[in-house]
């Protein structure tokens, strides 16, 4: 027995490679879906915050990404928009990235169609505007001055849902789906710190580690990090077999394989040390 454990400790790395490959290939080929319980994580914080919004309140969603980060951020956008609609919250969309406006339009219009929500009554898309931080500061004094019309050039005055919206303070929450700069940091620094509007965030897995600081200082109410964050939100909202949840299966299985190998490595290491082996 001890012999086997010791051999496992010196395992040829090619065996690990094979197992990792299988851990990815098998779930993909069989379209496996794993349960995804969500603990007390930043994604649950965001969900809870949205869930507690009163009916009829207004939320600004900024689509600050482009097609290259769609795999991670589009499922988030869809789940978030669905949740907001289910809570009967009004959504105002906009974008700090040029291609974000149409990606946001896709997410909002597809969800609106399935729930019978009407454009201009329940949601609208103001489109893209340059300027990043400086532009956000201007939104703090007047939004209609920066966006006199929406994305399709419909004037502000002709959009009924915008009647009671003047500046950023009209929103109960701002959510930035952010792939980089300009993005969530501009929103936190300007809309959050300066005008005191609660900020939520969806971001790529690569940028998540640096954004954890803002959670620690309560500058953000919650965060969805990478595919895992998207899958969490899909689970919490109750989307069955969503894009992100499906993508999580191969990741989780491969992750488990690696965890298993770390355990094996350590067991082998200690059994060897007990025997007084060299090294």
């Amino acid at each position, binding site marked *: 027995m001890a012999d086997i454990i010791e051999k496992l400790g010196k395992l040829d790395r090619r065996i690990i490679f094979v197992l990792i*490959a299988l851990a990815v290939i098998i779930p993909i080929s069989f379209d496996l879906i794993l349960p995804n319980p969500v603990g007390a994580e930043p994604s649950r914080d965001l969900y809870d915050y949205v869930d507690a919004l009163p009916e009829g309140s207004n939320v600004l969603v900024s689509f600050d990404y482009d097609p290259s980060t769609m795999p991670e951020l589009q499922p988030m956008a869809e789940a978030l928009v669905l949740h907001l609609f289910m809570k009967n919250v009004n959504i105002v969309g906009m974008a700090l990235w040029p291609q974000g406006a149409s990606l946001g339009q896709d997410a909002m219009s597809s969800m609106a169609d399935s729930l019978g929500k009407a454009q201009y009554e329940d949601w609208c898309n103001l489109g893209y505007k340059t300027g990043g931080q400086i532009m956000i500061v201007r939104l703090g004094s007047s939004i209609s001055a920066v966006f006199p019309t929406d994305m399709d050039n419909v004037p502000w005055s002709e959009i009924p849902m915008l009647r009671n919206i003047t500046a950023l303070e009209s929103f109960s929450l701002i959510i930035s789906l952010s792939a980089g700069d300009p993005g969530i940091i501009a929103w936190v620094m300007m809309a959050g710190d300066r005008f005191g509007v609660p900020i939520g965030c969806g971001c790529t897995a690569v940028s998540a580690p640096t954004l954890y600081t803002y959670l620690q*200082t309560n500058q953000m109410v919650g965060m969805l990090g990478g595919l895992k964050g998207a899958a969490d939100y899909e689970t919490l909202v109750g989307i069955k077999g969503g894009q992100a949840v499906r*993508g999580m299966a*191969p990741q989780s299985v491969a992750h488990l394989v*690696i965890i298993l190998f770390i355990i094996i490595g350590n067991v082998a290491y200690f059994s060897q040390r007990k025997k007084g082996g060299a090294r």
Partner: protein
Amino acid sequence: MNWEILGIWLGALVTLCLYSFLYRDNPFYKFAEHLFVGMSAGYWVIYQIENVLIPNWWQSMVPSEGGFNWIWIIPGIFVLFMLARMVPKIAGLSRLSLGMIIGSGAGLNMVSFFQTNAMAQVKGTIFSVASGSVWSIFSSLVLVVGVVSGLIYFFFSKAHTGVVGKAANVGITILMVAFGASFGYTIMARLSLLIGRCQFMLEDWLPTIPRLLGIGG
């Protein structure tokens, strides 16, 4: 000839060749590696011509609306100095260009690193630790102590003994915890790259095989 299917097959073949490296070095990998180096080097030559030399230099010097901007001769001369390396007799001229690149790089890096790495991070660390629950006070203290002791670890002119030694030890401890956490978090992002390649092989390439063999339409 179906160009799309040919493209998928080319992509799939080089993918398999490169993956064979995981087993051991072999002729397939050697072939793909040499091909990759050659093709990408060729790609980058064209890239530099199309994206830097023509738009940033040539079109600034000879604008399409006519005229000639003499000042843009200067970078042209520096490029020639650089290429002078190919002629052993005047190879020394390249040092002038190197001096310019290294000087600009050093100056630019000095201010930008100082701004984003030093000033911004110090600013982020100056805050009140006495707010919120006991747990958040503890966390804030760990953060501040971590940054300070981490900096002490980098002290070069003091031996790591006594108080400095203890602080440096705390510092390296925090650094190790940080590196572990960062490694653990990144594994997931790295796995998604492999998933992308597997999807290409299983969902784009594999279905072309029966089509090529004439099975299943």
